[in-house]
Structure formats: structure tokens, C-alpha cells
């Protein structure tokens, strides 16, 4: 029997560590690993995780740019996080005071924060508001935590869960407003839908706007015939240049109510669309189909 080198974990452990680095472990596997774990295994696990990350980097050279709006939200979230951390830091400092004084010190810190806010009468920016909200919430949590466990060590004050201010989300827009916003974006894809020979296509005009970064889009029709949802529904298809063109991505089903001349429909892509190449609308049975027979294609448009 061969002897295991001292700096190498055994085979079973390596298998677990590989799985941990690539897809994660089940609770049972994690317990097994915890029982086997050692300093050598920890170092080996870190190396494997680093190797997995390096391979992921090697395959991510085509990283897209983060959408500007999303980057801004992340920055606001970061502001809130660091404001909360600063407040928690004050609470830790206050923890050096003993016993009942700690509660007073925390409240003093809260008063000081409020006072600091008062002496700066300039209007608070949205980011500042989030920051102060997070700081105040964090202090309240710190005090409440202390009140519940008066004999707890100082660490219990430190263990305030990081307070993250809710990320502000704009009020929901109507599909028409959302479509208009996407149309205004320079990097969104705009496609005109053309009529086909299908009788259902007569007299309609339509277009698609699609934002590849957020994977959102809208289809807009004027003059598309109303359907009876109990009999038929319209179904959107997205042809992705990164996929087999025989199998376009399902973009969801929709209806055109009677006496409606114009509709704006959100596209609900069932899969991530990497290279949107064309959009089509077919008439299908209620609920849509997995694979269209393409007997009734009523609109079709290709990108640039």
C-alpha cells in the first residue's frame, strides 16, 4: 500500500474538495468534509478554488460591460453598506465602555449622528439619506441586541447583521413607458417587423426593441387582429445567433383584445439571449408550444 505524501490529502478527500470547488457540496458531504478536514485540506481546497476561478477567468474574456444603471445601483448599495459598517464600528468602540454604560454610549452615538446631521443643513442627497438610514438602523439593532442579552460579550454587539438599505427601484412603468425608455437607449436593438403572406398578417405593422444588457424587450403592434384566447394565442420567438436556428427561444404568448388597435407586449425570453438575430410571431394553441410548426407566422423581422 502506498503511503500518502504528508502535504497531499487522500483520494476521498480530494474528490470532495474538487466537488466543493466546482459545484458545491450537499449537507451530508459537507459534514463528511468537516470531519476529515485538516490544515493540509484547507490549503488544498483554497488552491483548487483558486484554480477553478482562474479557469472561469480564462473563459470570461468576453465579459460584457455592466449596464450603467445597474452599476449606479451597486454604487448606492456600496455606500449604504459602508455607512452601516461605519456605524457598527462606532458601536464596537462604544463596546469598550462597561455594562449599562454601553447602552448610553450607543444612544450618545445616535444623538451625535443626529446632531451631525443637524449642523449640516445642506439638502441630503439620495445616497446620503440611504447612508443615514442604514447607520440609524444599525445603531437601533445594536442597542436592541444589547438589551436582549445584557450579559453577552462585546462580540454580540459586533454581530449586528450588515444593514443594507433597500435598493431604490423606480416606480413601475407601463409597458408603453418602458418601451419608450428602451427606445431612447442608444445600445438597444430596434427591429421593424414585416408582414408575411399569412392572412393574419394583413394590415399590421410592428416593431421590437430589445436591450441585450438587461435582457428586456417589448414588441409593439398596430393593426394586429384580435384573437380568441380560448382558441389561439400569439407567441413570440427570438432567433439567437448563438444557438441552433431550428430552435428559437420562446418569448412568451400574448393576446390582442377585441377593439384594440395598438398593443405593447413585454417579451419574456425563456432563456438568456446572447446574440438576438431575428424576432417572429406565430399563431399557436392557447398557452403556446415548445416547438412551433410555423404554419402561421404573422410577423418577422431580422436585426440589421
Amino acid at each position, binding site marked *: 500500500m502506498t503511503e500518502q505524501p504528508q502535504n497531499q490529502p487522500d483520494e476521498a478527500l*480530494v*474528490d470532495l474538495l*474538487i*466537488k466543493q*470547488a*466546482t*459545484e*458545491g457540496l*450537499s449537507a451530508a458531504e459537507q459534514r463528511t468534509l468537516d470531519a476529515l478536514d485538516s490544515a493540509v485540506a484547507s490549503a488544498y481546497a*483554497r*488552491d*483548487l*478554488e*483558486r*484554480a*477553478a*476561478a*482562474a*479557469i*472561469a*477567468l*480564462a*473563459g*470570461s*474574456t*468576453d*465579459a*460584457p*460591460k*455592466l449596464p450603467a444603471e*445597474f*452599476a449606479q*445601483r*451597486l*454604487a448606492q*448599495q*456600496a*455606500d449604504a*453598506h*459602508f455607512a452601516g*459598517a461605519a456605524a457598527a464600528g462606532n458601536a464596537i468602540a462604544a463596546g469598550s465602555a462597561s455594562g449599562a454604560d454601553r447602552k448610553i454610549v450607543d444612544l450618545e452615538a445616535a444623538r451625535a449622528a443626529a446632531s451631525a446631521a443637524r449642523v449640516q443643513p445642506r439638502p441630503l442627497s439620495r445616497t446620503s439619506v440611504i447612508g443615514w438610514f442604514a447607520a440609524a438602523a444599525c445603531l437601533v439593532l445594536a442597542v436592541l441586541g444589547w438589551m436582549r442579552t445584557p450579559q453577552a460579550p462585546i462580540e454580540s454587539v459586533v454581530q449586528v447583521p*450588515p444593514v*443594507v438599505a433597500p*435598493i431604490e427601484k423606480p416606480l413601475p412603468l407601463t409597458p408603453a413607458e418602458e418601451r419608450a425608455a428602451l427606445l431612447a437607449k442608444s445600445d438597444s436593438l430596434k427591429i421593424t417587423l414585416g408582414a408575411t403572406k399569412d392572412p393574419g398578417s394583413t394590415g399590421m405593422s410592428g416593431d421590437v426593441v430589445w436591450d441585450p444588457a*438587461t*435582457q*428586456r424587450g417589448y414588441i409593439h403592434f398596430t393593426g394586429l387582429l384580435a384573437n380568441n384566447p380560448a382558441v389561439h394565442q400569439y407567441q413570440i420567438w427570438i432567433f439567437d445567433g*448563438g*444557438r*441552433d436556428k431550428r*430552435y428559437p427561444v420562446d418569448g412568451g404568448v400574448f393576446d390582442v383584445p377585441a377593439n384594440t388597435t395598438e398593443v405593447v407586449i413585454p417579451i419574456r425570453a425563456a*432563456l*438568456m439571449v*446572447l446574440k438576438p438575430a431575428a424576432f417572429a410571431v406565430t399563431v399557436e394553441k392557447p398557452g403556446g408550444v*415548445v*416547438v412551433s410548426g410555423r404554419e402561421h407566422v404573422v410577423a418577422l423581422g431580422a436585426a440589421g
Partner: protein
Amino acid sequence: VSIYHYHAPILAIFPAEIARPSHTFDPVESTLALDPNKLTRQLMSPSLLQRIASGDSAAVRECIDQYGGLVWSIARRLSRTPSDAEDATQEIFLDIWRSASRFDASQGSDKVFIAMIARRRLIDRLRKTSAEPPMDPVEALEAVAWADPGTASETSIEAEQATRALAELRPEQRQVLELGLLHGLSQSEIATRLSMPLGTVKSFMRRGLIKVRELMNVEAEGVGARL
């Protein structure tokens, strides 16, 4: 029921220069190819994560600008929907802010540290949701743009090392790594998709990962000796 079937010819997935089996790794040549002055500068000046840990708010913005696309890219690959990817990206950046103080520049670059945090969070999210794979296997038909070992300024050293190690593997071994590490499929799912015994998938995954790990350690030691 998926209508898709994985049927990509292996060599179509991997660029020819990567698939070429003649490329062998020479640790001495590889070490000499690295610029020691550049490495010294990198090691001496505080990294982005170290600046974040020290409370530099400008570094936070820089981090989002510099690595937002990378995190977003990894999250998109390992998430089921764009909305999931967005949530995951927010969680990953929170993890980055919390973990910045634990970053050790001697253990690797900012970039690989962030990729590790991203992968850890995404794996965790995948395990907490369903057993479904994060994406349709047809996604794997998309050619993967592996880092080019010659463009050091655009990639991290670790990505170059990984690319060199991958070049030494057989195409089917790389395919297993690609499906597992880039597309988030489990070993069992890879076995099913490729009609390959689970043991073979495990073996390929293991061999590939260990190969990259060894290469990274060898190069790190070589660079350390030169500095």
C-alpha cells in the same frame, strides 16, 4: 421538457490554437516571459481591494467599473434568469466589500479573488434553489473565448496560467471543465449530457483542476524566486 440536445462537435467549441496538442508548458520559459518589474510594482502598490479595506471610497467605484463586467458575466452564466443574475451580482459585491480586508496579494490577484467570491456565492445560490442546471445545454454551443496567453495586459496572470494548463489537456477534458466551471453543470449533469460515465467526468474534472493548480503553484514559486 427540453427540446435541446447537446451535439456540438468538440473541436468546434475550442479555438484551434487551444486545441493544438503540441503546446507544452516549460516553467522556466514561462517564468522568464513574465515581467518581474511589473510584478514588483503590482506587489508593492496597494491593490484595489486593499484600498477598499482601508476605506478608500474611490476604490469602491473603481472596483465596480473594473470588475462589474466580469462579475456580471460569471453571474449570467451561472444563473437561471437575468433577474437571478442581477440579484447574484448585488450579493457578490456585498461579499466583496465584506471580504476585502481578507485579501492577500501574495496569494493571487484582485481579479482571481473576486472571481473566487463570485463563484462561491453563485454555487451557494444554485444549491439553494432547484436541481435544474442554470442554463440550457445549447448555451454550450457558444464558442468560449479562452484567454490568449499572449495578451498579458488584458488578462490576469492566473487566467494565463489556466489557459496554458488547459492547452495541455485533451479536448474532451477541456469540454468537461468548460461545462462544469463556465456553464455551471454538475458532474452528473455533464455525464448525462455527454453520455459519459460519471467516473470519467470526475476523473477529467479532477485531472484538469489539479493540472491548473499545479501550474499556478509552480509559476508562483518561480516568480517568487526571481523577485
